[in-house]
């Protein structure tokens, strides 16, 4: 057995761009997930039967099927709906929908952790429900769930690897291209694993630092 890592070191530039692709997928996917999460929770809180049912069904379907099946489904479904998106945009959409289902659960928990008195105080001051949610409930709720959201972001970052299945531009698909040219499968994926590990650790560290800043107000 001989290992030859030169094939990866020679391709360091392609890999670096792959990392950029991965991070972009993760960031945009998470942004979409947050929009879906906040929107979904707003729908659930309005307590109307049909929209609540739809959101609940969405959450259950996403949480109980594999991401790979979801991304295939979206990839093949969109053209039927007359929409042509490149794989990378499709990947962001899939990541956002998937992450959104988890975000709904997390954010709902956070919102429920805010005492009712906060909402009542806002209403008594003459603010409307939407304003109360945006200006009073949201930030403390986000603070409460920031750790869960951070883990969710890391998870989403790792999930981006699966987007190679539709050839979205990210680290794993770059790796697969190198593998196809060099047949050095183990060396390639071993290196990618290391890179992903570094990405996770750095992200974790950065998110903790951001959290300390963004939610700097004292709690009690």
């Amino acid at each position: 057995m001989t290992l030859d890592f030169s094939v990866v070191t020679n391709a360091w530039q392609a890999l670096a761009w792959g990392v950029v692709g991965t991070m972009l997928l993760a960031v945009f996917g998470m942004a979409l997930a947050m929009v879906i999460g906040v929107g979904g929770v707003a729908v659930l809180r309005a307590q109307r039967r049909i929209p609540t049912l739809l959101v609940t069904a969405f959450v259950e379907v996403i949480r109980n099927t594999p991401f790979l099946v979801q991304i295939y489904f979206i990839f093949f479904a969109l053209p039927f709906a007359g929409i042509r998106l490149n794989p990378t945009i499709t990947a962001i959409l899939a990541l956002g929908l998937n992450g959104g289902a988890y975000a709904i659960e997390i954010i709902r928990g956070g919102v429920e952790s805010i005492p009712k008195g906060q909402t009542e105080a806002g209403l008594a001051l003459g603010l409307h429900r939407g304003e109360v949610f945006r200006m009073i409930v949201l930030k403390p709720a986000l603070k409460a769930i920031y750790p869960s959201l951070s883990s969710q972001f890391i998870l989403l970052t790792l999930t981006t690897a699966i987007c190679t299945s539709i050839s979205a531009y990210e680290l794993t698909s770059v790796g697969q291209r190198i593998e196809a040219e060099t047949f050095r499968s183990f060396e390639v994926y071993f290196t990618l694993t290391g890179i992903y590990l570094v990405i996770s650790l750095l992200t974790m560290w950065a998110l903790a630092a951001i959290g300390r800043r963004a939610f700097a107000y004292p709690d009690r």
Partner: protein
Amino acid sequence: MGTLEFTYLLEGLRWTLVLTAVGFAGGIAFGLLVALMRVSKSPWLRIPAIGWIGLFQGTPLLMQLFVVYFGLPLFGFDVPAWAAVAFALTAHASAYLGEIWRGAIQAVPRGQTEAAEALGLPSRSRMVDILLPQAFKLSLPATVGFLVQLLKGTSLAAIVGFIELTRAGVIVANQIYQPLVVFGIVGVMYFLMCWPLSLYGRHLERRMAAGISK
């Protein structure tokens, strides 16, 4: 889509179940080991466990599958594809379950350890008779939750080319040119396996929350 294609999907589904079962069983055995190492007082046991957990929670499952799948032959283990995938899933599960059970063991109130110490129980008995049974109960919802995650995770074997449910779906979809129908059916099949488990996990969680507030 005809019966032939449907049977093919069911064939794939059988492999999905096999992979899940083997990965979960292996994960339980090695996960227990990881958890015990993780809560050990000795750094020689604890630190490798921390590293093991961090490695698997900090990298994509897909990379773990690739590394094992391509690595085993390099190191002279010529095993069939399903065994390589099952091996990777086992390692993956051991890390996640180890971390879940670590949390559960540490969530057992300190008084329990102290009471056991006060009774003069040896440390082995403290763990086996007092802590583990209680931790097992505490960890049940999260363990069931991970089982769902693992079942969904087996779909990644499709990317290394192993024919389980998702890969079977890809093949059938390419044959009959009806990707939406095929992936819809595949999705429903996963859903029917995962959803009851998720509901059961939530039921356990609710029952436990009620038990604690009592």
